[in-house]
């Protein structure tokens, strides 16, 4: 019984620790004024109304969505066939691939930015300050999640037998991939896409260092708004947080 109370106590503390900053921000974003009192004076939606009518915010949000969705589309088109080819034709490559996809995961983005900023500032690929350089970096962020999740899905189905059966029934390799393998990958792919989406949306380092004010994404906009009212910034933080929450919820739904 005493142990039970202890464990409940620890878990409650954990919940409090994790949720207090979120709840404080939420309360702050809903209050018109809040100074020198423990609880806010008056609750209102005024900051949210102001935010969602702010054209700079909407533009930054749109840019973030465009660059993230574009990256995810490109990553899907490149990674899905690559994983399948590795599994079906060159299984010995899997070890190398697993080592390669760890690099972007292990190297801090600040370090990668040093090289990127110098390689793509001039020369044949002059893409610094454009969304294209972000698409490239975001590809490497999404890569570990997508590759691992697709590889897990592929190893949970019997690729070779499924392909052999499809071949026996007269399908070509590409048709068999599209009609037999791809539907089996859908769940894992969707879950990893939502997960990668919330990661990409949270990127500040690449967005700030490589694109900056030339292509102001949501995170950079948020940073640039730091001097405005705390209520306004907390409305941005909460809008962003609720959006990623929605993405996490979708991830959980698809990975069931």
């Amino acid at each position: 019984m005493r142990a039970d109370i202890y464990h409940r106590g620890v878990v409650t503390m954990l919940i409090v620790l994790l949720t207090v900053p979120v709840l404080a921000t939420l309360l702050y974003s809903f209050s018109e004024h809040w100074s020198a009192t423990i609880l806010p004076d008056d609750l209102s939606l005024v900051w949210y109304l102001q935010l969602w009518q702010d054209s700079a915010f909407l533009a930054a949000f749109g840019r973030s969505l465009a660059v993230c969705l574009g990256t995810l589309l490109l990553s899907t088109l490149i990674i899905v066939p690559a994983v399948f080819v590795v599994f079906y034709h060159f299984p010995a490559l899997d070890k190398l691939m697993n080592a390669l996809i760890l690099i972007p995961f292990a190297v801090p983005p600040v370090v990668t930015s040093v090289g990127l900023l110098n390689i793509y500032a001039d020369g044949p690929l002059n893409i610094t300050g454009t969304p294209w350089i972000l698409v490239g970096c975001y590809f490497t962020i999404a890569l570990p999640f997508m590759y691992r999740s697709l590889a897990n899905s592929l190893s949970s189905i019997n690729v070779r037998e499924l392909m052999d059966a499809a071949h026996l029934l007269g399908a070509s390799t590409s048709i068999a991939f599209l009609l037999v393998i791809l539907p089996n990958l859908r769940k894992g792919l969707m879950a990893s896409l939502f997960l990668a989406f919330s990661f990409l949306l949270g990127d500040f380092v690449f967005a700030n260092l490589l694109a900056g004010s030339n292509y102001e994404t949501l995170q950079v906009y948020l940073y640039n708004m730091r001097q405005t009212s705390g209520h306004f910034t907390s409305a941005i933080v909460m809008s962003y947080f609720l959006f990623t929450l929605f993405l996490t919820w979708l991830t959980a739904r698809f990975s069931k």
Partner: protein
Amino acid sequence: MKTTSIPLGSQAAVPLLPHGWRRHWPAALLLLPFFIMLTLFCLAPMGWVLLNSVQSEQGLSLANYSDILSSPFYRQAFDNSLRISVWSSIIGLVISLLGAASLRRISGRLRRLVVSITNMTSNLTGVPLAFAFIILVGTNGALTLLLRKWGLIEGLRLYSSNGLILIYTYFQIPLGVLLLYPAFDSLDDDWQAAASLLGAKLWQYWYYVGLPVLAPTIFGTFILLFANAIGAYASAYALTQGNFNLITVRIASLISGDILLEPNMAAALSVLLMLMLLLVTIVNQWLLKKGVRHAR
């Protein structure tokens, strides 16, 4: 070189379907975009950093490194980064260990709630996290005002290294819980019963049985938390507007600051940062081997 060794292996495994690069070149072409993207945006920048860290005005030299190591300013950056990363990883690890251990002993509904809260809050990082903490414990933060009103505290020093440790710990906890929680499944409840039958106290069970079994996961989690903290940039930058001396802040200001751009210096700092990560991983492995031998 690989072209000869790899097809042979798969041929041996599936003799009816010969798999060679020659036969499968259209399939191999599908790997090309993957390797091009990885090279352009990951391998090439890494290579640039390594090559240019040893470039200076006099050509190939280690001048950048000796400049960094002899500069008190850069040494302070390393000192700050290391201190904040180690402390936030240790505090985060202890809190998540206690949390994950208790999480297994509570009812299913509450457990699911905590796991989803952990998942949710793992998204609160970087700039939004810094802003949330400014709102809560900044100079005019809600909690600061409350504590001041009660006379408990003059003011919390959020914009100091302790403030950074606080914020870093916050983003370490969800990660720690998510990594450690599954590991507790490897502890058999019967072991604890057996230990107590043999007269072991609770701490003795944990010291001699529980923790040695969990050791590889705990060490592995520490490395991930440490790497997570030492490479972090956004929260610290947003909180202090780049005025706190950290390695990542220094690197970023050397490549995109307003004053003086020194990309070679930034490259050398980056290499040292990576070496530090490598060193911690090696020490970790060494401790782990020693620990495992000791447990046997």
